[in-house]
């Protein structure tokens, strides 16, 4: 049987700890724990990652750091250095994208690749990718290769670290049959408990159990999806992320703000900042949101559409101010205000009735952006309230008047 679909699940081994070991050769082969801010205080920190050497002592991620250090006193405890991990991750995913554009990262160290349309044998492609990652970054990864995401992920997890498991087309059900229920991604302790109550222990038993009998306990959709996946049937696609999902900016005040005029001024300022970053990314937004946190820490977030999408300060500001007017209770002291834009795309439908005004706004935005690039943020900003872009130019003509 040929590869109808070929999905690779790539999962780096003890990623954060391995990055640390890679850049500090003296740590190689030694237990390494990544966690905390590096200030020596372990009381409130947890383990973000542990090398396999540390895991032998019973250390695992999300464990309180203090406890981890007691379990493994010889471990090197290092602060979390996200920029370094992100950099390594970017290099690895770039190698993956050279193989196929269909790369769906799940986190910095884990991704699905759909190589169905890439010429060649999926197993050989994965071997090449594994060798390239090791050569370029010194990092090891585990691979699962199968016809769907569910089976590929289970396969990569089976022989970690440095695992390499291929499940050939048609072998899915056989491969899954002996595995315990919890190996199925998304099958949590509560569902596993329910299934155990029905006498089910393995994926094979789950696959053989009539879905109709599960429906009553789990609901129709969940029962159907679980039995299908337990048989190795999963048609969910590998979806590459759309680049930027949202842009937002918020600020917390040293002293709570009550003055309405001051709040509106801050919303204008935040909107302009978001607008500048939106334009710098070459995007426009279809939604604007406003976040308010009051002094008593109750928060609210509201959003409204930007008709057809926009990247102009005026549109974002007028949307955010309208949300402020609609939701804010005037006398409550405010601790935090945030403005965000969402549903971003790199195209914007223009509006017939605001075309001339929009052209002027565009020119003004571009001028302000250029000045800020040259002289820094805060060098110049809009003084007057942004005009309402939403007004139509109505013609007063009506049959009923004549």
């Amino acid at each position, binding site marked *: 049987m040929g590869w109808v679909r070929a999905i690779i699940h790539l999962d780096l081994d003890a990623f954060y700890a391995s990055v640390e070991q890679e850049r500090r050769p003296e740590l190689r082969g030694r237990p390494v724990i990544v966690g905390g801010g590096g200030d020596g205080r372990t009381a409130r920190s947890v383990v973000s990652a542990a090398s396999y050497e540390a895991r032998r002592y019973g250390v695992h991620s999300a464990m309180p750091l203090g406890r981890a250090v007691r379990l493994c006193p010889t471990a090197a405890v290092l602060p979390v250095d996200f920029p370094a991990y992100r950099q390594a991750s970017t290099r690895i995913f770039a190698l993956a994208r050279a193989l196929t554009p269909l790369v769906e990262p799940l986190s910095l160290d884990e991704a699905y690749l759909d190589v169905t349309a890439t010429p060649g044998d999926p197993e050989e492609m994965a071997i090449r990718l594994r060798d390239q990652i090791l050569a370029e970054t010194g990092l090891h990864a585990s691979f699962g290769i199968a016809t769907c995401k569910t089976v590929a992920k289970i396969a990569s997890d089976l022989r970690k670290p440095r695992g390499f498991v291929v499940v050939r087309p048609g072998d899915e059900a056989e491969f899954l049959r002996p595995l315990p229920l919890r190996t199925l991604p998304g099958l949590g302790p509560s569902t596993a408990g329910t299934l155990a109550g029905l006498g089910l222990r393995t994926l094979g038993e789950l696959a053989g159990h009539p879905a109709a009998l599960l429906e009553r306990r789990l609901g129709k959709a969940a029962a159907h999806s679980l039995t299908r996946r337990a048989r190795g049937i999963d048609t969910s696609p590998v979806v590459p992320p759309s680049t930027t999902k949202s842009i937002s900016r918020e600020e917390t005040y040293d002293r709570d703000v009550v003055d309405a005029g001051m709040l509106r001024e801050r919303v204008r300022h935040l909107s302009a900042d978001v607008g500048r970053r939106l334009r710098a990314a070459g995007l426009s937004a279809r939604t604007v949101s406003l976040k308010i946190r009051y002094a008593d820490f109750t928060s609210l977030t509201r959003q409204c559409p930007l008709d057809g*999408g926009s990247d102009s300060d005026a549109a974002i500001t007028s949307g955010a101010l309208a949300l402020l007017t609609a939701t804010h209770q005037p006398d409550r002291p405010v601790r935090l205000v945030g403005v965000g834009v969402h549903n971003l795309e790199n195209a914007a*439908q*223009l509006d*017939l*009735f605001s075309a001339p005004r929009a052209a002027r706004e565009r020119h003004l935005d571009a001028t302000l952006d250029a000045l800020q690039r040259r002289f820094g943020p805060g060098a110049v900003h809009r003084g007057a309230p942004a005009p309402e872009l939403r007004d139509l130019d*109505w013609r007063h003509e009506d049959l009923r008047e004549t």
Partner: protein
Amino acid sequence: MNNWPSGTSTHTALRCTVSPSALSSSLSLVSRAVSPRSTLPVLSNVLLETEAEGLRVTATNLDLTISALVAATVLEEGRVTVPARLLAEYVASLDETTCTMEVDERTQMLRITSGVQKTNLHGIDAVEFPPLPARETAPAFEVDAAALQQAITQTAVAASGDEQTPVLTGVLLHVEGSELTLVATDRHRLAVKKLEAQVLTEGVVSGTVIVPARHLGELARAINPTRPRVGVAFSDARNQVFFTLRDMEISSRLIEGNYPNYTQVIPAHSTTTVVLSKELLLKSAKTAAVLARDASNPVRLRAGKGELELLAQSAEVGDHDAPLPAKVDGEDVQVAFNARYLLDALQAIDGEDAELSLNGPLQPAVVRALGRDDYLCVIMPVRVP
């Protein structure tokens, strides 16, 4: 309950014989005005009432009222309301050429006898049916039904679905002398159609109303060759419009409010004119639309050197590129439009050749059939990187 005494009841109100197929076709049009989820039970019903010429069937959701006259032999005058969907489905199932309908005044039960079948339907007293909007003026003007049907199809597509701006969910009807203009816009595109109207009243007829686009759609649906003319009348209060057809009347509330000044956004000039086969462009735009997957479905047009090139790309899906032979006058230009709007415009125009009048990447463009002035679409571009 089938224990009704046979024979003529002394309490009968409304008795007539009618052809089930004629009644069925009228009911299918009239039922479009029935509220699917009304809090008022009688609004789920259709009103049946006898008239000199036959049986009138009427349904309303208070915004839209549709009534049709069905040829019938009236034996006894009367009125009743019965569930519209039930009656329509039942009558559609009858094979006989005629059926008799009669109502028991006391129980408001409608009995339909057809061949050997006898069926009783529970009705609601006609007095419960809301009073229908009264047409208090004679038709102001009349238009050719087929031309109006086409005009509605060509414009209603551009009306907005956004209830936030109610006037834009309607189609503007503007009559001036013997010319009727239909206009619709959703702020991103605009459709304008002119057709000839025959003025029926004395003096100058001039004025503007806004009719819900959906209601005009129901009018367009009712038009066929047996209904060749459409008369247009208004209520005295000027808040209702009445479209009268041979055997039907459709009335709609008007949308209150001021319509944007659409004439000022129709470009008078263009910097680039492109003329090419409408079919070729339509086909290519359809293919490109498949790949225009972003929210604003952008399809890029590049005009120059005797060619119009259509490009569409989507990060997730792929890209599409199609050069088409075209007559290009003026500046070379690149502009993007929502593929949906371009397709709607091309599908709405007559003629073999389409004329695109472009004004650069940020200004409105005009799509029309080459040499035709009765219909045009203005489309605002999508700004692309």
